[in-house]
């Protein structure tokens, strides 16, 4: 029987594996990392070394955050065979409500003075609540009323941005609260010392996670990879984390900005004084979201149900999973992440304009798909989607730096999207993976 053949195959497995295979790496992920490195090196070459610099690394990651956060939610949406075309529009209405809250309603209607410490938290809660509520409503229409997600969110794409237009009378809303702006990127960074501390904490956390996973396998007597492979993987992770922190710690705040910072405190900028940005708070928000979403995907029942429903909706239903409620939860989560992205995007731009997040739905879907999320459902990873967002943003910023015409930029990004999915299909075919 075929079982017999599998047995022998498995038993010879461990010792016969190549050194590389013993690392048990996700080849698909490695391919994406390789593509990302190749893109970065190519742009670095064509921009005479301006692409891989602390300054551009900083800008690139700060620009990626908003799309990357939404892309993590889009993974769950696409894994369950749905789609969300309304994320850009939901971001816009959440941003509009948050901006109106801090610039108009709280100061004028409630009477909170500008600079009141309550303004930023209330504005953030408003963004998150608006996003979550709209997402949950979409999920209810899809799950309980049976309207296809494509239609519900296509409608939402047209509806919500223009509801936002009426909320703001079509005006650009500024200035936003100074504490709120801290979440945007350049206005809120940790500085050198704290950045190292966070980096060290993250590295320690990664090592601990590897250790716990290995111990759990050992406890149940499952095969583990050789110790040197664990160290190689752990070492690489630590090097990437600390390398990233070191890069951002090497990006000095421009002198003009420093002078203004000192003047705001009533001091004079000393000669020769420098200070580096370090980690932006928005990037830390993204990392927290990434860890939380990965935990949800891999370690919770909700995540199991999401992937099971994507793999076989009937089986999920027959297993007693409430797939209707699950749809509401997934879209509410997507909406929550749109609200979070609204905070970060409007803080980065230091204002709300009606065109905020335009075409973000396509960037977010493209990021998830480039990151290996299959539109046929059941397959996708959070880290893949974030890497996908980073690749998209790298292409866009890199081409802008090289001086590629805007129309050609779009042509390239579109082609890359189709090409990435084609590669993915070929890869899966070769491995004999269905779906």
């Amino acid at each position: 029987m075929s079982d017999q053949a599998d047995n022998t195959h498995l038993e010879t497995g461990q010792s016969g594996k190549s050194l590389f295979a013993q690392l048990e790496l996700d080849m698909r992920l490695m391919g994406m990392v390789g593509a990302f490195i190749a893109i970065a090196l190519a742009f670095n070459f064509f921009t005479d070394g301006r692409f891989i610099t602390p300054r551009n690394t900083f800008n690139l990651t700060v620009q990626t955050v908003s799309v990357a956060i939404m892309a993590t939610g889009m993974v769950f949406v696409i894994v369950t065979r749905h789609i969300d075309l309304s994320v850009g529009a939901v971001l816009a209405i959440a941003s509009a409500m948050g901006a109106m809250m801090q610039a108009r309603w709280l100061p004028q209607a409630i009477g909170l003075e500008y600079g009141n410490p309550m303004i930023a938290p209330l504005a953030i809660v408003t963004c998150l609540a608006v996003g979550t509520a709209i997402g949950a409503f979409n999920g209810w229409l899809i799950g309980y009323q049976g309207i296809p997600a494509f239609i519900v969110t296509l409608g939402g794409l047209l509806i919500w941005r223009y509801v936002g237009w009426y909320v703001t009378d079509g005006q650009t809303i500024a200035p936003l609260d100074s504490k709120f702006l801290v979440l945007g990127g350049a206005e809120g960074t940790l500085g050198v010392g704290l950045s190292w501390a966070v980096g060290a904490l993250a590295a320690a956390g990664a090592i601990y996670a590897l250790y716990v996973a290995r111990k759990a396998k050992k406890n149940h007597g499952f095969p583990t990879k050789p110790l040197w492979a664990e160290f190689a993987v752990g070492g690489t992770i630590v090097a990437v984390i600390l390398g990233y922190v070191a890069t951002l710690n090497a990006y000095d705040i421009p002198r003009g900005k420093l002078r203004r910072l000192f003047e705001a405190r009533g001091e004079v900028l000393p000669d020769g004084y420098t200070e580096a940005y370090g980690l932006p708070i928005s990037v830390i928000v993204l990392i927290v979201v990434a860890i939380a979403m990965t935990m949800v995907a891999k370690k919770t029942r909700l995540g199991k149900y999401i992937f099971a429903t994507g793999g076989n909706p009937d089986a999920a239903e027959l297993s007693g999973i409430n797939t209707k409620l699950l749809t509401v939860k997934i879209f509410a989560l997507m909406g929550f992440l749109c609200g979070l992205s609204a905070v970060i995007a409007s803080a980065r731009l230091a204002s709300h304009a009606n065109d905020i997040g335009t075409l973000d739905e396509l960037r977010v879907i493209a990021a998830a798909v480039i990151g290996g999320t299959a539109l046929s459902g059941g397959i996708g990873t959070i880290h893949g989607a974030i890497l996908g967002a980073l690749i998209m943003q790298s292409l866009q910023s890199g081409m802008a730096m090289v001086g590629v015409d805007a129309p050609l930029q779009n042509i390239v990004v579109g082609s890359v999207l189709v090409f990435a999915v084609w590669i993915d299909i070929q890869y899966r075919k070769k491995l004999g993976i269905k779906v």
Partner: protein
Amino acid sequence: MSSNPNTGTPLVELKDISIAFGGVKAVDHVSIDLYPGEVVGLLGHNGAGKSTLIKCLSGAYQKDAGEIVINGEHAEIRNTRDARRYNVETIYQTLALADNLDAASNLFLGRELVTPLGFVDEPAMEAETRKIMGRLNPNFQKFKVPVSALSGGQRQSVAIARAVYFNAKILIMDEPTAALGPHETQMVAELIEELKAQGLGIFLIEHDIHNVMRLCDRAMVMKNGQKVGTVNVNEVTDEDILGMIIMGKKPPQAY
């Protein structure tokens, strides 16, 4: 005229069950019971209503009329979760496996083991899966791959393991051998014998008349949503049963 050889309290009684879709009466006032340690075959053409009848018990459909009694007590089964609470487990013809997940995730789907912190306990689930598969299909080794990579028999054993693991008292098997080779069919037959010996009651939907004669104690035949009759398999020939299925002809031994 023969009669039901079983005595005592039935495990399940489906009493006068009816269910209609639009104007079509898929199941029309059908009654059947099931005793511990027996296999009752449900036979009939495609569309005769046997799968529909059984889905009222497994919770996938809601009956329009009639009553379900389990262990002598009235049972309310509104969904598959309710059915599982009554220890009713179902092995669907389609197997109802999530192809993208591994064996352990499928086995525990909807009933995951969790750590004290509420996270899914994957290692524990895999260990339990290895235990039960070691009993059901000792050759099974593919614990780490999605079930889409398994053979028909291996997938079947995952689906069976899922039903057996959770202490099923009442097992519904919808054409469990339809997609299997002779060796794997034999494996399922042996398993049915073993489960019978453990005192489970099994409803077996089956098209192959030889499997019916071999595996079932009693057989109930349906045609066009109605019950033709029930027979004790050892009192009739396969010709008699085929006559019931094809012509709706009730032999004298039927009741």
